[in-house]
């Protein structure tokens, strides 16, 4: 594949992420921050997000296993997690987070657990997609 083709491929991948709702406008903001000083800024931030949020998710997992559920704590943790998700533009993940918080407010333990699992799924899917995407970005960059 020549460079043009790769570029097009990359653009398509990116577009799909947006079209399919995995990413939102905030991701574009991150891209705009990328410059010569930080040529891999977006990847760097996404990596940072996944690394840091793993900790939060683990905490929430543990909290969800307790009985009775500490909704306040769950809501608080999820609030933090939501902030991170939104900062990288993880749209679907953020949606699940909102759902989760709504269940917390309703003190719906089952709803919380369900939503949390859903959130983790989206979280993992996005992670995979972005890994592929960034790998492609790096390859295209090498071609230049």
């Amino acid at each position: 594949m020549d460079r043009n083709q790769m570029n097009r491929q990359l653009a398509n991948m990116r577009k799909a992420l947006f079209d399919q709702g995995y990413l939102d406008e905030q991701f574009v903001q991150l891209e705009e921050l990328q410059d010569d000083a930080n040529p891999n800024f977006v990847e760097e931030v996404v990596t940072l997000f996944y690394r840091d949020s793993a900790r939060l998710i683990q905490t929430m997992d543990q909290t969800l296993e307790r009985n009775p559920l500490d909704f306040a704590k769950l809501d608080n943790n999820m609030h933090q997690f939501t902030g991170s998700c939104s900062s990288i533009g993880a749209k679907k993940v953020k949606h699940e987070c909102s759902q989760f918080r709504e269940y917390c407010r309703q003190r719906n333990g089952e709803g919380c657990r369900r939503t949390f699992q859903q959130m983790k799924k989206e979280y993992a899917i996005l992670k995979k997609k972005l890994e592929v995407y960034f790998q492609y970005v790096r390859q295209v960059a090498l071609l230049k």
Partner: protein
Amino acid sequence: MDFYTSQTQTIKSGSSSCSRGGDVDQFPTGLRVLVVDDDPTCLRILEKMLRICLYQVTKCNRAEIALALLRENKNGYDIVISDVHMPDMDGFKLLEHVGLEMDLPVIMMSADDSKNVVMKGVTHGACDYLIKPVRMEALKNIWQHVVRKKKIEWKDKDVEQSGSVEDGEQQQKASEDVEYSSSANEGNWRSSKRRKDEDEETEDREDSSTLKKPRVVWSVELHQQFVAAVNQLGIDKAVPKKILELMNVSGLTRENVASHLQKYRLYLRRLSGVSQHQSGLNTSFITSPEAAFGSMSSLSGLDFQALAASGQLPAQSLAALQAAEFSRSATTSAISMPITDKRNIFSFEPPNLRFGNGHQEASNNTKQVSLLQGVPTNMEPKHLANLHPAQPIFGMNGNSQVNQSNSALMQMNQLQSNRLLLNQTNGSRVPINQSSHEQTLMSNAIPRVWTPKGVERGTTYGHVSQGSSMVDFSVKQSTELPGTSFPLLSGSGMSTLSPKPIFQGEVNTEVRDLRNFRPGYELVNELHLQKTPDWSPQNNRSAFHGSQNSSFRVKDDLHSVFNQQAVSATTMSGDRKNVPVNNGFFSVGEGQNNTSNMGPVNPLLAYTSRRVKSESLTDPGYQSNLLSESFGHDDHYLLSALLKQQQDEVLPVDNDFGFDGYSLDNLSS
């Protein structure tokens, strides 16, 4: 300053916030931002965004660290951006700390966009509230918050300096650089002041300029002006509108004053809790109409004088009491003190002059007490009622030659206070010319000048002439003696002595009644801080231990600010009433018949005096400095003693500010 000058120019050129790709040169490059967020992802993004805006970014992920950074380098940052939800400290708490201690603009951020949280940010004084995820556009404009604050500060300085003798060239230059000149601002201010009566909401917009609702920088000077105004009005009558008018600071809005007043009240409440603990006397004062601020706990002769001044005691009895007190102190009981010495005092020469006279007395003075009164602390509490007027004077007099009787000192103080009072009230009472007045005053035991009523009684006090002398005095003081502001302030009204820094340290104070206000501590603290630049270390060491060093670092300009404040207070009052500088300090407003507000007595003085007695303040090095230094040094010494006492009793002094510890303790949170 350069930064802001260029900033102004940028504003003038009409540049708006620049877009990501364009006009980067219009950014306030180098703006020093401290960003605090426990989320590393957000932190990294913010850092990058701010760097692209050409700001100088410092990031930290913990509020405690942020506070430490800010305290360590008070002038090292221009603006703080903080997340609301943080594990170690609530963002609003950090906001309060920063607002009070450093008075920097703070922007809050949160993923939570619910109105109540945003409102909380606003009410806590955040100058902006950003919803996460934060966009570049939002950050581009944060510099305007810094500029607004600076402009207000400049305008304040212009107002303060307009009548002062002090050399404010630098600031005036800065103000000239500001898009809106001070005169223009003042003009706007006055006209908008009128409009204020009609519509307080619109005045903000009509007022000069820049400030839509800028966050006001409550500099020390400004706070002192505020306190002076509050004292003048009396805490009960101190409504933002009137305070605003009294302060006469362009660019200040009623809302600014209102929110500051709220904080101040909390602060006083907290103090009252402390002061009541220390002296049970407050209540007695409060009831007295003339006793505006009752927190004079350890008042001694000063109180006596104040009480007399307030007209509660006939002159003769006061004199007698004083004499009695004095004799107790084993000094002269003569009411008629050597006039020659006192004369210096009364002529309101610069403190250093007075000190010159009293060089040898210095040690006496300290022995005598404290502060200035030299009145034995065995005075009964009831006498403490109306301290303040005498206090400042006291302080001043104390240093001077009162080696003799305390009564003499007291008299002098009385006289001075009377004079101040007289001047302030413009009472047409005693047409005594200055020189004779002084002497007359001297011979009179108690000038009851403290209140307007008192003035009437004090027929022996010349007023108008005094007024002018007072003005001169104050001006002189401010210009000549960096530290003099304290004496003036202390005399006039304790409240004014609590400069911003001190106040700021009190985050969650619950002061309900200003009368219980016991600024002594703060005053000392403030003074102490202020004096740091001017004083040799040994002075500080006398009473201030531990954290003093750090506290000194805190406000380098406090000292000058303080002076300015004194001067500005004079100026302010001068504009309105031809009243001497002390106007601000004396709660008794000029001609305001502020009978209910004696102004905060100078608890500091009283306090210190007591303290001084109990402590051996004879630090030779200090004393020599005392003698050679301006009046302020005395105060410093005393204040230090007071502060130490307070610290020992009340506050842990581990933080930069003694009151920091206190305030932190108070923070419940």
